[in-house]
């Protein structure tokens, strides 16, 4: 996995959000963190689809927590970023930094 894998923008954001909240969280918390930090509205459907896809790519792992006793609660699914995920994030970041090097967007806009 790793080699040649390129993360989409939203995938990056989801991974980062998960890491920000302590690399352990379920969908709701990831969504809230994403929305709060990016300042853009985020839907739970998008977050979950991305989490699932990242898990397919083995960049995340998930497990289920026993349901809470009250409210006929369901079991909830926790996610965490795996080492492979961290690695791809780092690689992607490095790629972006190399591309950004020497580029000043402010100047381009003004001219």
């Amino acid at each position: 996995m790793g080699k040649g894998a390129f993360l989409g923008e939203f995938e990056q954001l989801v991974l980062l959000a998960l890491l920000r909240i302590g690399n352990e969280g379920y969908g709701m918390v990831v969504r809230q963190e994403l929305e709060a930090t990016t300042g853009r509205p985020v839907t739970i459907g998008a977050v979950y689809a991305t989490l699932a896809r990242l898990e397919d790519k083995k960049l995340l792992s998930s497990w289920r927590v026993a349901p809470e006793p009250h409210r006929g609660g369901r079991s909830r699914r926790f996610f965490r970023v795996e080492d492979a995920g961290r690695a791809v994030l780092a690689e992607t970041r490095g790629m972006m930094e190399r591309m950004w090097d020497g580029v000043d967007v402010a100047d381009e806009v003004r001219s």
Partner: protein
Amino acid sequence: MSGTPRSPRMATLLLRWVLPAADRDDVLGELDREYEECVVPARGGTAARFWYWRQVLGSILWHARQGGRDRRARRRGAFDRLRLDVRFAFRSFGRAPGFAALSVATIALGIGISTAVFSVLNGVVLRPLPYPDAHELVRLWPNWNLSKGVMVQLVDDVDGFSAIHGHVAARETLTGQGEPTELYGVNVTPGYLPMLGVVPARGRLFGPDETVPGRGDVVVLSEGTWRRLFGGAESVIGSTVELGGKTTTVVGVLPATFRPLIEGAEFWRPMRLDPDDFSDYHGIAQVTVVGRLSSGTTLPAASAAVLAVANAQREESPDSYGEEWVAASAPVSLHHSLVSTSRGALWTVMGAAGFLLLIACANVANLLLARAESRHREIAIRVGLGASAGRVARQLLTESTVMGMLGGAIGIGLAAAVLRSASAALPPGLPLSESVALDARVVAFALAATLLTSVLFGLIPALRASRLDPQRYLREASPSVSKSANGMRMNRLFVGAEIALAVVLAIGAGLMLRSLQEIVGVDTGIVATDVTTMRVRLPATSVYAGDSQRADFFGRLTRRLARTGGVRSAGAGTFLPMESGLISAVYEAEGVEYPPNQPPPHAAFQVVLGDYFSSLGIPLLAGRLLNADDVADGPTAGVINARLAEEAFGSVAAAVGKRIIMFGGGADFEVVGVVANSLQQAPGEASAAEAFFSYRQASWWPSMYLIVRAEPGTTVAADDLRAAVWDLDPGVPVLDVRPMDDIVRRASAGRRYFTLLLTGFGVLALVLGSIGVYGLMSYAVNERIYEFGIRSALGASRQRIMKHAVREAALPAILGVAAGCGLAAAMTGAMRGTLYGVAAHDPLTFGLVPVVLLGVALLASYLPARRAAAIDPKRLMSSE
């Protein structure tokens, strides 16, 4: 926890349907969790629900966009299934292109016609008038015109209106801008255009002081007129023209987007309000009064206010205004008053188009049913591989929806093309016909119609196909026994329904045709053959300023025309039957007691010259016609029609020699003769009481219609007629040279158009219905081919087999026809308003149409039946 509001159920279900099965519970769990724990406490019930919906819709959108990227089978959500079904649908069309093309074409036809008709209905009846706050605009005395004096009184006295104004149609010659030309326009009160919310594109509108005689020589032009006559030059504002002989200043130009209340109006002038000019101000009811309700005033409240003023008027001058006039005062919405005549006809056509669409649906449903049968094997295999009945049904429904959408898209394109090319062909006099276009509402209608028809024709075949028993079809090599009678039931039902609808359409068309026949044959009271008319308008120069000069000109003109080669007689009149509007006035017959509470009677009036009556073929019934003895200074003489004679004096004979007072005393004449009634308006309307005066005694009209009757069998050339006028004065414009026949025909044009349309629909319905029956029969024969073979082998004669096969079609056809007649009987009552001379349950139509349709149905079943009878049993058995 009690008290926590439940998450919106519909949103939950929606999301559940879209999400892939694997993640469904998790996502919804997280969503509900956040909703209950975070959002509701923070934002409260309504904002929280809003948040929930946003989450659901956003997630659905995400899945719609991203869903295709995940190729894993287990991730498949609703959108992936949809994509798959659509691809499958196109593939199955490819396997049976003829069937698909026929279905799509049928749907396109149905949707196209319905959409086109709806566009017209929308533009004319449904769309609000193109003025700001158009719902506030009303017409007072919706079917009457008022005198200028009464209008002014209303303006002063009535409460509840923010504005009351009036308009009078006018025609004036424009000279000084190239060739003299005649313009149609409107004389209006100063605030009339601002009331309609018009802002001039250039220049200004009128001021209130411009109604005073001598001050009002200003005019505002329409955009089209400005471009046509002034080439769109900016310098037009402030320039002067000769309009109606008066030097008039152009002060403004209206924008092209303005829709005048009188279609085709080219100019607007301030209405002359001069209380001292008795006959113009009080004597003639010529003003159409419109108003704008003040905000907060309801129509009933306004009605009451108007009624109060009307009653006050009546008390003041009880001779002039009766109860009928007062009762007629109730204002109606302006929109309603403009479209009320076309409304009924348009809704009927819409209904007919709707029926046609239903028939198209039934046809396609039949096709689908037939096709589903031939796909048994394919469906059985899918079921065997694990597809649920619901899945199969869904896929078939998707197919029919895709077909419907294709047909709908083509149909909309068809409608757009038809509207573009046929906008010139819309019936004359259809109000607001410029508003007919494919706007948002029309497209929404087309979309809704498409979806509805897709469901209608697709649902039943889909449900049926999904309930097939796969075992039966997988085990047998080929079906050797015909399918159960049950299987054909749906087909028969659809065909029966089609035929019923076709019967209704055909009966509707039949009634209209008969009605048209009656109208065309109606006695107009004139003999229109060999008659040519033209209009001559004397320019307002000093040459024709005096009454005697005008009388002299027209007198010489009629004599000159009578001497022209080929002419038998010539006359002139101020109005032409079926062409111009009538002006009426109150009258009183001398020596007749009019009870105080009765409305005073009205009569129309005209001024004539020369051989007016004989040229039009109106016979004299008693007394004499107007002639040269009725000179300018002599006693006023009048000829009345039979209707007025009977109304005023009880009989034609009794009228001669009696006196009548008109215009509330403005005219007082002796009845010298009585003529037969003639139609003044379109055929289908009763003729009004009418009085005729001699032009020599009432020469104030500068414009007259000349009526020229040719010797039987000859035609008089238009050029000869014009030459006759120009011989007397080459500067006099001659307009509208037309045969009288054309005018009579044009008067019934709207009705004819409407009938043609309905007849077209009826024919289409017939064609579609026949196709449906033919299809059903073919299909039935194919299905039962072995059965017929066996019967034949067992000794049944060809006739018996044919009879058997035809009976197959006969039953649904007969039931369909019967049902159709019943439906038609229930529905034609609604057409009563548009029928003329024909009962809504006309026995001839109701008897003939079913017989014809039954005959067609049986004919359509004949061919397949013959095929059934020609089956060679031996070949059939050996091929099995």
